[in-house]
């Protein structure tokens, strides 16, 4: 394999108005590598991706692709044959079939008419070549996130590019899907495809990447082989200070007190069946499980987003009407939903409005909302959660991902909940914000709030007093604190380590 770097960016500078998005940054990716690019939100990763995909041009510095100067911005075909990018936001058109998505705007035609059989055949061949098992006649909107990404990768490769940028590909995937994605990446790597992997999850970097480059505050900090870089050093490079060792958490569970949450024989076909557990005030309980295990559905049932077929939920001494979100809120449930973009935030509304959306009844008499009360409560929550915003009136869409998640968390906490239900609360959030958010969770627990964290992210589960593991809709394992990673992972995958 040639040793000409696939990408060689030297001293690249990019400014947006007064903001310097990239400050003399470097990046060299060698062919056949899987190269990780990590950095906290705002480190310049996205800007670099837009330069590498030809969406914008550097103000100064040089960018070589396969040893040649990068093509002009208007030469889209040339760019497509050099670099492919799978964005976080899907570029699939849901109502068109998979085959058509793959060959959009380049369908084989005869006499101006699309030859559908030929398009489907070509699509099937393409997917087979890159071992993607998807029926090409299905509407692409029916595919799961994982299959969609595979289809997008295959489409990217079909333009001839052998360099693929994956922009946080695992953000919306569960453990099993991530494994399959990684297996796929390894497979493609053997076929000579080079990857630039952008992720918040350092564990993933250690699992699949050869080399890692760290950016911080628009600058290049280090590039090193992954194997030779201890995790603590990597975190230190990202944060610019030595990583704080997570302090030992003392359980704040009040086990003698009546439970804050009692779940009895809860069933909802086909998601989960016969789920029973208690959460004591001040206790943090993890609900772990792979995608499709039913953990998300159980959590959503607790908050009233879903209605169980049978079984009971008792919050404190109340039994909120099943399938009724306002009733759950009134019973003292605070909630961080799975997908903050879809269920968590109203993007065009202000930070203050978003923070207080679920407690509007406390903000004034009757149907009225007093702006002053709202801003005061929002201000308190903003400073409590250290949301970085110029003011409560800013539209929440202008915030970075980590800060948006803080707003979602602020809303969950705004009502002083008796029970806090969190679903993958740190998805797509940088390392520091993650630590901070989890710190706030244990703070709330120390104040007597019962917490349930539904997640398959080990970092989220680490602060739990105990972890309940769900497999295929049933509670299978209870793991007390002090577990090792592999115990939880094995339990989620339904494997017995001793067998």
């Amino acid at each position, binding site marked *: 394999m040639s040793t000409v770097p696939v990408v060689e960016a030297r001293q690249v500078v990019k400014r947006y108005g007064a903001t310097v998005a990239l400050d003399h940054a470097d990046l060299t990716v060698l062919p056949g590598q899987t190269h990780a690019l990590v950095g906290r939100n705002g480190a310049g990763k996205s800007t670099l991706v837009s330069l590498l995909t030809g969406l914008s041009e550097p103000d100064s510095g040089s960018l070589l692709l396969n040893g040649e100067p990068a093509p002009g911005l208007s030469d*889209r*075909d040339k760019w497509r044959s050099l670099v492919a990018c799978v964005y976080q*936001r*899907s*570029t*699939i*058109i*849901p*109502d*068109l079939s998979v085959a*058509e998505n793959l060959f*959009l*705007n*380049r*369908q084989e*035609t005869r006499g*101006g*008419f*699309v030859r*559908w059989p030929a398009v489907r055949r070509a699509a099937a061949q393409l997917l087979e070549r890159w071992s993607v*098992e*998807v*029926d090409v*006649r*299905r*509407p692409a909107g029916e595919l799961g996130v994982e299959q969609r990404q595979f289809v997008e990768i295959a489409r990217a490769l079909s333009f001839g590019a052998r360099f693929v940028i994956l922009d946080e590909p695992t953000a919306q995937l569960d*453990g*099993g899907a*991530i*494994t*399959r994605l*990684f*297996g796929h990446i390894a497979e493609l790597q053997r076929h000579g495809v080079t990857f630039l992997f952008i992720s918040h999850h350092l*564990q993933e970097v*250690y*699992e*699949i990447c050869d080399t890692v480059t760290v950016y911080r505050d628009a600058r290049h900090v280090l590039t090193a082989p992954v194997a030779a870089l201890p995790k603590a050093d990597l975190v230190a490079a990202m944060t610019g200070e030595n990583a704080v060792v997570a302090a030992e958490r003392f359980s704040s569970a009040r086990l003698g007190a009546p439970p804050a949450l009692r779940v009895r024989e809860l069933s909802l076909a086909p998601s989960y069946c016969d789920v029973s557990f208690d959460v004591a005030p001040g206790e943090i309980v993890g609900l772990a499980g792979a995608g499709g295990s039913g953990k998300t559905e159980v959590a959503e049932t607790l908050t009233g987003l879903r209605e169980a077929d049978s079984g009971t939920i008792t919050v404190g001494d109340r039994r909120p009407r099943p399938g009724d979100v306002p009733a759950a809120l009134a019973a003292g449930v605070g909630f961080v939903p799975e997908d903050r973009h879809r269920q968590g935030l109203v993007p065009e509304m202000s930070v203050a409005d978003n923070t207080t959306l679920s407690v509007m009844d406390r903000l004034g008499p009757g149907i009225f909302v007093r702006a002053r009360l709202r801003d005061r409560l929002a201000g308190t929550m903003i400073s409590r959660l250290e949301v970085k915003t110029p003011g409560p009136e800013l539209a929440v869409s202008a915030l970075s991902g980590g800060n948006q998640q803080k707003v979602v968390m602020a809303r969950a906490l705004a009502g002083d909940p008796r029970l806090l239900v969190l679903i993958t609360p740190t998805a797509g959030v940088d390392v520091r914000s993650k630590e901070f958010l989890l710190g706030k969770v244990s703070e709330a627990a120390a104040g007597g709030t019962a917490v349930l964290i539904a997640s398959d992210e*080990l970092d989220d589960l680490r602060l739990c007093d105990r972890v309940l593991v769900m497999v295929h809709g049933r509670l299978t394992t209870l793991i007390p604190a002090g577990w090792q*990673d*592999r115990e939880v*992972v*094995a339990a989620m*995958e*339904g*494997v017995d380590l001793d067998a």
Partner: protein
Amino acid sequence: MPESPTALRAEAQAAPAAGPPRRIAFARVRDFALVPGIVAIAVVGQLVNPVFLQYDNVINILQTMSEIALLVLAQTLVLVVGKMDLSLESTFGLAPGVAAWLTIGGGHSLGLLPAWAAVPVVLAVGVLVGALNALLIVRFGLSGFVVTLGMLIVLRGLLTGISGGQTFFGMPASMLYLGITLWAGVPASIWICVLLFAAGAVLLGHTRFGRSLYAIGGNEDAAKAAGIRTDRIVWIVLIGASVLAALGGLLLSGRLASVAAAQGNGYIFTVFAAAVIGGVSLNGGRGTLFGAFTGILLLYMIQNVLTLAGVPAQWIGALNGTIILVALVMSRITSGKRQN
């Protein structure tokens, strides 16, 4: 790293998940959702009045709906590409109105142009209105809904202005031709309507241009990323839709041998109803011309049945609205999909 989670996960995942079960193309089923309804109405109509399925009555239904069907065709194209054009109903009246105004002598007409220019003027007005819509919506990025709402009012006002609120009569023969001629024993307007729908269906389903309409309506950014010139295509669609509306107006004024100041007034609601009943999404990227055609056909068949059943004309309006609602519910049930 034998203990890494991935390694364990990889071991755990021994058997690959079975491939997804083969599925029938449900989009196709959705297209035919109204066919049972049409058959049912045909049966009911026949029971109500044996005239219903006779050749003359069927031709009558088809001819009455042929003009508005062209508006449905135009609106469907615009909806699929993810836009809306409310002004079509005013173009439907204004285009033949302007042609009559310019070619007829006497009265409040100008009579500036020779008779042969009438049909080209009709089509030119369509192009102009469409281009103006596209300029405001695509070039200047204004809200399509409000632009075409404004345009609807302006164009209607223009027609009322030039006609003085009166009806144009005595139009040149070229404008009457398509409305009154029979081709092979069937009115030309039916031929035109059916052929345009067929051509449109082929265009939408089987050409890159047509497919790019779905791509733009479904996910404009993705369409751009696939190299589709989205702006240019929206221009073409908006202009094409206005030309179709002008042509529809020409057919109607030819059949009635007149252009009333209110020609097309209020049609747009029926047009939207027919499109949505026929499975076209108001959010873009979904729907077919076959579905849209069955939508307008169903509405006109029901109206015809009501007339044959002797329902007083004063009640037709209320019943029309009810029919639209019922048809919506029916198509919701048969397609099983949420409408938007």
